[in-house]
């Protein structure tokens, strides 16, 4: 070799830019759209004098959100604990089951059709049932429905990742006389991580939906879902919308937390480290 080969791309460095995945200036167009949409919403309601029970003004929602923040936050925290508890439980169990099904493929082929079918079932429909299994006032009734909701997408995605390893990569490990534990640790699990995070991100969304909708079927008075429902029933629409806003913010926060964890974990993936 006479010429020194040069790298195709420089090694990216860490920092805030890595966590959010792009430069802050890249967010400007999205911010403009957000401000524009909220402004349009406000303007249309003022212009056409839309009744509050149909849709309150964003400024009114924001004011109510701020004025009732301590009550809202208490309710939000209660519901967030249910969502997070169910998320951790459901996802943790899903990852364990995926490892077992990937290791013993006969189990995988026996159970996977049902897991995929279950993934297509509207599990949230079972919420009234889990409310009767546990006390509806107790967090465990919502944690259980959230766990079941989170379980299937994480299971299906993680298992797909664990089993979609390049056959050459496995032959290579075999040529080194590596055992199953080594193959999982060094090849299958790293290959599965991007798939697993896709499942986890889907699960964050399902977790908040599960907790809030579960509460619509009955729950403690200080739960966010119950608050939204009762405020809407007594025509306190600004309060109901403030509750919905908080549910959205909590859902987004959980999603972003998992996305940040993904970026920290998958530093080696070109698409996440650019």
């Amino acid at each position, binding site marked *: 070799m006479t010429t020194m080969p040069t*790298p195709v791309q420089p090694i990216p460095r860490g920092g805030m830019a890595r966590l959010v995945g792009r430069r802050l200036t890249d967010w400007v167009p999205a911010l403009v759209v957000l401000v524009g949409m909220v402004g349009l919403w406000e303007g249309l309601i003022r212009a056409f004098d839309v009744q509050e029970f149909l849709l309150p003004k964003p400024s009114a929602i924001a004011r109510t959100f701020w004025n009732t923040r301590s009550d809202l936050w208490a309710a939000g925290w209660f519901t967030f604990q249910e969502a997070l508890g169910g998320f951790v439980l459901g996802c943790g169990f899903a990852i364990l089951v995926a490892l077992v099904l990937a290791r013993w493929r006969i189990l995988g082929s026996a159970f996977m059709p049902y897991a995929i079918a279950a993934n297509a079932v509207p599990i949230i429909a079972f919420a009234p049932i889990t409310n009767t299994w546990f006390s509806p006032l107790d967090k465990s009734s919502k944690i259980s429905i959230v766990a079941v909701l989170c379980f299937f997408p994480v299971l299906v995605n993680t298992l797909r990742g664990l089993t979609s390893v390049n056959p050459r990569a496995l032959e290579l490990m075999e040529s080194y006389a590596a055992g199953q534990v080594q193959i999982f640790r060094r090849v299958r699990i790293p290959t599965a991580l991007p798939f697993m995070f896709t499942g986890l991100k889907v699960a964050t969304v399902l977790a908040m939906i599960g907790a809030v909708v579960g509460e619509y079927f009955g729950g403690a008075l200080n739960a966010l879902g119950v608050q939204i429902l009762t405020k809407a029933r007594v025509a306190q629409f600004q309060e109901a919308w403030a509750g919905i806003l908080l549910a959205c913010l909590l859902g987004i926060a959980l999603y972003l937390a998992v996305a940040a964890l993904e970026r920290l974990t998958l530093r080696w993936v070109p698409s996440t480290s650019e």
Partner: protein
Amino acid sequence: MSVVEIKDVTKQFGQTTALRGIDLAIDEGEFVSLIGPSGCGKSTLLRIIGDLIQPTSGTATVNGKPARQARIDRDYGIVFQDAVLYDWRTVAKNIALPLELARWDRRRRAAKVKEMLDLVELGGFESHHPWQLSGGMQQRVAIARALSFDPSLLLMDEPFGALDEMTRERLNMELLRIWEASGSTVVFVTHSIAEAVFLSTRVVVMSPRPGRISDVILTDLPQPRTAATREEPRFFELVTQVREALHLGHDVDHKLEASA
């Protein structure tokens, strides 16, 4: 002593006979190419030597041991057509992988990785990730990884098949230099007649349906081989000889098909 000894090996995949009646002995320090059209079983034969698949009948011996024992003893390194580098590992950690599995301690691993990086002339790239390297560089990492634990045998399955002609010829020279430096025995699967003649001490010509050895050609070109070797009359004679052997294999094949 023979490093590889194949005795009367047959391999069936269902109804298809991939290999029939293969006998082949490869001596220490040889560079043997397996060449033939698609479906002649050359990759299958390589995998039988590496105990990645097992023959239906017959035996494969490596370093005087059954192939399985040789694999467990890590007697060979293998390189595939695509580099099969692990994306989540840096270049250095990819090369160190077999050493980790063999439970070398950290300091010994680091020293060996440095030695291998120098051997394949990739010093300075140890903390790069595979996707930051060109195809030729990736393949050199794969070769460094295969040789990192000093195996006596190197198995290569069309290692340069996906590279452009220029890179391929350069890596051919690299490989010969590494072969001479390491003193290992090489079994090399290829589609390219020129590559087989240029690299090998012996070319094993195979033909398909069923996969079998149709000819073995001794390539008596002087060592060490250089860029000038490709322009010698003897090089062209050998290329012609291998080409004719390949076509003969095909003719037999067509006659069999006609009579079937």
